[in-house]
């Protein structure tokens, strides 16, 4: 039977039509592809608009089209749109094929003749292919109403609370002993100078006590299986060596523990903790964890001071890591960021010059609950600085390190300037390339810091050194920079330097992304589905990204994203079921010779050998549709829906159609 094919060429405003002669493509398809069954070819300003879709629907109904080709954008953007349109008109949605002439033609080529010729080839390929398409039915699967949130910083807490308050269950997994994330380390938040702990702690407590939230701290996700609606997640709950049922959080174990350890995480290396510890007083949960590497008992076999003094016998040296399996329908990743390692900028001397501090160190230094009780002092622990230099863009906007702007550092630098001024009265210099104070009330804060008398020097600092050239520089740190507005090199002696270090992706972001089946950008941040219109979803259905895991951002934006992703998850949960692409492989038993070559190829163990019949069989529930077995079967007995040999061969032939002009630069 000859198919009746309709070809629709989209202008996409001028996105396609500006480079491709869309009218010519449509005319050509009608004339030259008639023998393939093309009965109508149209071009239209915006095919994806409701009018464009109606055009297709009308033709299906009136002309009795049996196949549809839309030459427009990438199928990843609008395949679904046109499939639904076809379905509305009574055509099986899988009989629609998209020819990408925007991402693959008009946006990447400039010569109009060449782009038009290539578009014809792409359309020809799609027409040949669509003839071989088979009607398919979507597979519907129920959605598990539970959600996994990975990361207990402010973005993850927000996500978890929104979903839990709507009445659905959340597993909140955090790798550290307490939730709170970086925000728990800060003293003040810009631009309002709210006390960070004061606004964060109530949220942490709410998440810790919420009946719909299972809080798993000191835990990490180690495996993810399944797909949207039906993920099976394995979580490693690391041994705490503290029985959570018995522990009252009284803190006596910490008091009695004889082993002092530098706290590299919460105190940013500026303070100490014990081997058994809660990272800070308001930690949620308030049960301590035992750090096995540093515990004297684990090292030498004696001590157990904590056990002796624990009033409830909650210390348990025999605890083991546990693997928990949870079933969830959706996953939100809120894994946050790492601070840029300022030692890499060796000309700023961090790690070599004692009084050069990183931003996180300064946060602890200025925090009333920090190692100096909020006294801003030099590394000697007592001297108050009389002059302080704050350097912006450390490791950011620099091709030697990270090319992107870390967004928060300008405001952070201004906040530091204010705190130094307020607490020490020191002269403060801010060294910046460009002052970026976009967003509500941010520039007003800049004005305020200017009023306070902070000195601003426009220039990226060249170096911080202790090599004095002149007598006024002796014993000081000298910040050498070009004052670009004065056009002169300046050497400014100060007592303390604070590096406003940038944010960078978690060191293990790539592995985490791989585990959850999502990708990272070149810079290493998780990639969102669409940079503007779908910033919290990912290319993998059912996986969402929020907060700094997706890119550098401030607290308000992280909170907004946390809430946004929750709305998306609740939408999915309330739909109760989700449709899956019916792309699966099947074995034709008549043709299978029982050679078993395919059996070993499937990483999902979907292929089983049926000894009685001497044939292999594919379990459709396990098959993920990669098609490797299809390509491997020597008898051609396995076929794959959606990407059959017939479809691909036809597409090859169509792309190479004889009377196409060669396409070149």
């Amino acid at each position, binding site marked *: 039977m000859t198919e009746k094919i309709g070809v629709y060429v989209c202008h996409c405003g001028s996105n396609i039509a500006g480079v491709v002669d869309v009218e010519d493509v449509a005319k050509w398809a009608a004339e030259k592809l008639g023998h393939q069954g093309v009965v109508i070819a149209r071009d239209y300003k915006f095919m994806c608009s409701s009018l464009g879709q109606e055009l297709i629907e009308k033709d299906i109904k009136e002309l009795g089209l049996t196949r549809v080709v839309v030459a427009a954008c990438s199928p990843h953007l609008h395949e679904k749109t046109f499939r639904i349109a076809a379905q509305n008109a009574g055509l099986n949605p899988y009989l629609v094929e998209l020819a990408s002439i925007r991402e693959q033609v008009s946006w990447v080529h400039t010569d109009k003749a060449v782009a038009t010729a290539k578009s014809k080839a792409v359309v020809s390929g799609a027409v040949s292919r669509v003839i071989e398409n088979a009607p398919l039915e979507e597979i519907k699967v129920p959605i598990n109403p539970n959600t996994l949130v990975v990361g207990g910083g402010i973005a993850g807490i927000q996500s978890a609370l929104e979903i839990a308050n709507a009445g659905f269950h959340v597993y909140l997994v955090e790798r550290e002993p307490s939730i709170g994330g970086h925000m728990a380390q800060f003293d003040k938040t810009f631009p309002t100078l709210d006390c960070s702990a004061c606004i964060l702690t109530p949220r942490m407590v709410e998440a810790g006590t919420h009946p719909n939230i299972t809080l798993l701290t000191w835990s990490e996700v180690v495996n993810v299986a399944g797909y949207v609606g039906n993920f099976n997640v394995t979580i490693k709950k690391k041994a705490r060596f503290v029985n959570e049922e018995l522990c009252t959080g009284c803190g006596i174990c910490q008091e009695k523990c004889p082993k002092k350890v530098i706290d590299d995480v919460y105190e940013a290396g500026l303070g100490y903790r014990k081997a058994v510890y809660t990272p800070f007083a308001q930690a949620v949960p308030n049960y301590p964890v035992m750090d096995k590497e540093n515990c004297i008992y684990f090292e030498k076999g004696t001590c157990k001071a904590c056990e002796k003094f624990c009033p409830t016998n909650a210390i348990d040296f025999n605890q083991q890591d546990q693997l928990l399996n949870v079933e969830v329908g959706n996953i939100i990743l809120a894994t946050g960021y790492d601070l840029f390692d300022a030692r890499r900028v*060796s000309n700023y001397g961090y790690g070599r010059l004692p009084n050069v501090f990183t931003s996180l160190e300064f946060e602890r230094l200025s925090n009333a609950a920090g190692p100096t009780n909020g006294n801003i002092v030099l590394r000697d622990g007592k001297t108050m600085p009389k002059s302080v230099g704050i350097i912006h863009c450390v490791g950011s906007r620099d091709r030697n390190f990270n090319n992107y702007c870390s967004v928060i550092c300008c405001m952070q630098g201004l906040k530091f300037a204010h705190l130094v001024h307020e607490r020490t009265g020191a002269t403060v210099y801010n060294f910046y390339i460009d002052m970026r104070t976009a967003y509500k009330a941010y520039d007003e804060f800049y004005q305020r810091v200017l009023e306070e008398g902070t000195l601003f020097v426009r220039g990226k600092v060249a170096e911080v*050194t202790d*090599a004095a050239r002149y007598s006024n520089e002796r014993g000081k740190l000298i910040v050498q920079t070009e004052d670009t507005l004065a056009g002169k090199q300046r050497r400014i002696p100060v007592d303390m330097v604070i590096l406003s270090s940038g944010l960078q992706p978690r060191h293990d972001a790539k592995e985490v992304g791989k585990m959850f089946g999502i990708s990272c950008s070149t810079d290493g941040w998780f990639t969102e589905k669409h940079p503007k219109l779908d910033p919290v979803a990912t290319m993998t259905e059912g996986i969402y990204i929020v907060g700094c895991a997706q890119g550098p951002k401030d607290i308000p934006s992280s909170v907004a994203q946390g809430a946004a992703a929750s709305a998306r998850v609740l939408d999915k949960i309330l739909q109760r079921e989700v449709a899956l692409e019916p792309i699966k492989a099947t074995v034709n038993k008549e043709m299978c010779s029982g050679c078993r070559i395919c059996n070993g190829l499937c990483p999902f163990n979907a292929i089983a050998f049926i000894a009685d019949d001497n044939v292999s069989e594919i379990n459709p529930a396990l098959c993920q549709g990669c098609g490797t077995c299809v390509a491997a079967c020597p008898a051609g007995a396995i076929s794959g829906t959606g990407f059959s040999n017939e479809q691909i061969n036809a597409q090859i032939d169509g792309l190479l159609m004889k009377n196409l002009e060669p396409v070149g630069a």
Partner: protein
Amino acid sequence: MNKYLLYPGCSMESSAKAYMESMNTILESLDLHFEEIEDWNCCGATEYLGINLIPAYSLIARNLALATKQMHPVNGTGGTRTVVAPCSACYLNLAKADHYMNERPSLGEKVNEALAAGGLHYEAGTLDVRHLIDILVYDVGLEKIREAVVHPLTGLKVVPYMGCMLPRPDYQHRWSDHEHPTELDDLLRALGADVIDYPLTTECCGGHMTQIGPETAFELIRRLVADADERGAQMMVTVCPMCQMNVDAYQNEMNNYFGTDYHIPILFFTQLMGLAFGKEPGELGIGVELVSSRNVLAGIGVEVPVTQEPAAPRKKDEGLPMPRRWTKHEGRKETVK
């Protein structure tokens, strides 16, 4: 025996003779064989590049082309594609030509067109251009150097001075850091010396400014010497003929200019290696420096034989007056105080 091709560079035969002598003296102890590139020419230093582009790169590339002729094994000695340059400026020029001929193919083509006029050709990337200290630290290794030490330099307070053209721009990522590389520190420590952390280790010595704008250069030399002195160094140790020349030969001039009285000798690292390996100061070119190291070395039990002393400099009050401070308008007019 490990073979390398040697590009000595002009200064190794004149102002930095001591560097050449000491290098040759220590090679044997470390089982190294350097084969000089035959009929090499000047690399153009920092001057040729400022006049024109293609001739400058052709001048450099001639050496690379000549070196490729000696790459292959001859008479049983092993082949090599590594060219060693002991002079930092030569090292940078050779490495730069190799890098840019590749980065901008049109430059590479033109240079080869010029080379063809002399029957030569160089394919960028054929050779590995490396500095002497790179070979010693990374190929020979500090372990082997430590083993060769018979007279540790205990008590000798030195500042390691790497200079600027060696660790930067570092096209091939050979050094531990651009700003504070530790290779020279580690090597001197392996010799037993008391190494002082020197924040100015990769600062510039003034380069050709001693010739064209001496006041600019004097200030750079002052910074280096003053900081070394302040940190209690008895001696500076360098890897570069230009650095040695400027800090050594112009130290007295600099003192005159600023009215200071610094006296910090500067030796090549190979000279100290030779001393630690038990070689005689005479074999190492020690004693030809203008700021004498004799007193300092006596402190660690090394006696430097008296060589020919330079004619006694005129006393300051008898001397001719210094020029006025150079400015861009008056630079050409030398005036008498």
